[in-house]
């Protein structure tokens, strides 16, 4: 339920600057996802917002109020950790009630809130179990439940699903999306390195790189209008193809990018690229074709028809539309339209 402003946020460990001048405004009720490679400073930034880490300089405002010196418990936040961080010696009920108990809420109120939350997350039957007797997915639910019971202004998630197996991750992702929808106006900041989570959950994505914001935008903007080669490469699966040298110079850029899903197979003589099919991966619905066109790496083409093409056959390719060509200069910045 809070608007969060980060102004010139910096954080150093000794001489190493890990967070370099971050400016960001998170709107009230927004679901923001921080994404970036490992070591890019996502957790550090989240910890600065939570108050568990202390910033070196800068300002952090919640609803316009400076919270730099407010201890974590008074910021109105709740955090869900990657390792769940449940109290191992307390049962699920006690885990969820701990925060309210410390805040000296009355017993009836605590009980009602814990039971309501347990109902919401369908963990009522687990209330008197110890964390060690829960499965990974159940622990994650309890950790989320503990956060909800705190009734926070802001939810902070640090890679909450990365310890779960793929199937469970999908289920929990849906539940988190549902949760955000059902808790109107609760601001959520979610750290992940998983682009599917970022694309499906976020209202806006913040791409971090080496402690700096590379780009902020809706999932669609990030996918369609990457503001750098880094973002273009990071979002999308399989990765965007990058062509250099003679492939790009005649288009006035040093690197030309095109996503595998934006390349069509066309009749011989009508396309811009042609080459031999050297490998193909059939994923059922999609097939990834690796085409050797004389660039550094084979061009990956994503086809959703599964008509098999024999290996070593010659294929001609064409970008589907002009707008699907991404042109970057030697610094990895986009070249503006001519």
């Amino acid at each position, binding site marked *: 339920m809070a608007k969060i402003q980060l102004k010139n946020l910096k954080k150093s460990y000794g001489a190493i600057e890990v967070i370099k001048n971050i400016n960001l405004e998170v709107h009230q009720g927004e679901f923001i996802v921080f994404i970036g490679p490992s070591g890019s400073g996502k957790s550090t930034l989240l910890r600065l917002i*939570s108050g*568990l880490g202390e910033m070196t300089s800068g300002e952090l405002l919640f609803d316009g109020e400076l919270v730099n010196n407010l*201890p*974590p*418990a*008074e910021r109105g*936040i*709740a*955090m869900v*950790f*990657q*390792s*769940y*961080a*449940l*109290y*191992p*010696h307390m049962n699920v009920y006690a885990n969820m009630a*701990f*925060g309210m108990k*410390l*805040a000296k809420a009355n017993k009836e109120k605590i009980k009602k809130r814990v039971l309501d939350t347990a109902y919401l997350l369908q963990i009522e039957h687990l209330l008197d179990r110890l*964390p*060690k007797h829960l499965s990974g997915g159940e*622990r994650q639910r309890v950790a989320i439940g*503990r956060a909800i019971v*705190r009734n926070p202004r802001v939810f902070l998630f640090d890679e909450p699903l990365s310890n779960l197996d793929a199937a469970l991750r999908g289920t929990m992702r849906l539940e988190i999306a549902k949760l955000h929808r059902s808790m109107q106006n609760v601001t959520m900041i979610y750290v992940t390195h998983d682009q599917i989570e970022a694309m499906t959950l976020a209202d806006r994505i913040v791409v971090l790189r080496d402690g700096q914001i590379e780009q902020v935008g809706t999932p669609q903007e990030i996918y369609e209008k990457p503001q750098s080669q880094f973002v273009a490469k990071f979002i999308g699966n399989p990765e965007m193809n990058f062509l250099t040298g003679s492939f790009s110079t005649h288009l006035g850029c040093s690197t030309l990018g095109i996503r595998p899903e934006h390349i069509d197979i066309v009749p011989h003589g009508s396309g811009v690229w042609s080459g031999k099919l050297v490998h193909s991966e059939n994923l059922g619905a999609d097939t990834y074709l690796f085409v050797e066109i004389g660039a550094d790496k084979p061009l990956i083409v994503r086809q959703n028809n599964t008509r098999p093409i024999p290996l070593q056959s010659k294929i001609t390719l064409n970008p589907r539309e002009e707008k699907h060509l991404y042109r970057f200069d030697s610094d990895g910045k986009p070249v503006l339209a001519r």
Partner: protein
Amino acid sequence: MMKQTFKNTAFYIFVAVLILFSVFPFYYAIITSFTHGGALFQVQYWPKHFDFINYKTIFSQDNFLLSLVNSLIVATITVICSLFLGITAAYALGRVTFYGRTLLLLSILAISMFPQVAILAGLFELIRFFALFNTRWALILSYTILSLPFTVWVLTIFMRSLPVEIEEAAIIDGATPWIIITHIFWPLLRPAVITTGLLSFIGAWNEFLFALTFIRSESLRTVPMAIAFISGASEHEIPWGIIMAASVVVTVPLIILVLFFQRRIIEGLVLGGVKG
């Protein structure tokens, strides 16, 4: 089927032999403590009659009672000191990163391998320097030194097995440092604390060499010394009955302690459950 029965039988025979070996000396001590005079010198495996005269004798000796009190004081204060230092050191070694931490931890482990005699001379100088010779503090100091490496080592390992995130979750839940210590650390470290504390206590209770070296006054003797100094009616008579009765008396508190904390100790030894 047959094979299974054979295996089971072999197993129980093995266990029985093991128990016999470890328990027999104590059992024989108990039997001896109930015999008196000439009967002492007949080997017997079953008590024929219970004679409490040896117990009466030791409990009528003021020195023996005094030594029990001394041992209790020394062992208790040793436990308090070594747990206090151990827990604080373990916090530093387990939670705070500083230069040379691993080296320090390894040297602590190395120190715990030294034989007691090796540090006797050095310790003697130290105790003379602090003017602690022939005081209970000499024993408390040396026993604390003796038990600290193990205590620190075990507690550090336990401290490290507690994820920092649990602490952080508590901070976000609004826990003060005191609440974190009492509601999070203590319940989680309790098995380890009890186990190491108990071992320090047993170590201090049974120690003989330092006690012999650092204590001169009869009134300050601890239990193992008091037993060693029990003498018979004549120079040539070793009063086995009385010695055994005394040994039984001083072992019983330990057994009670261990039984009392048994569940906790086992918890402590198998505690991997914190990982959660």
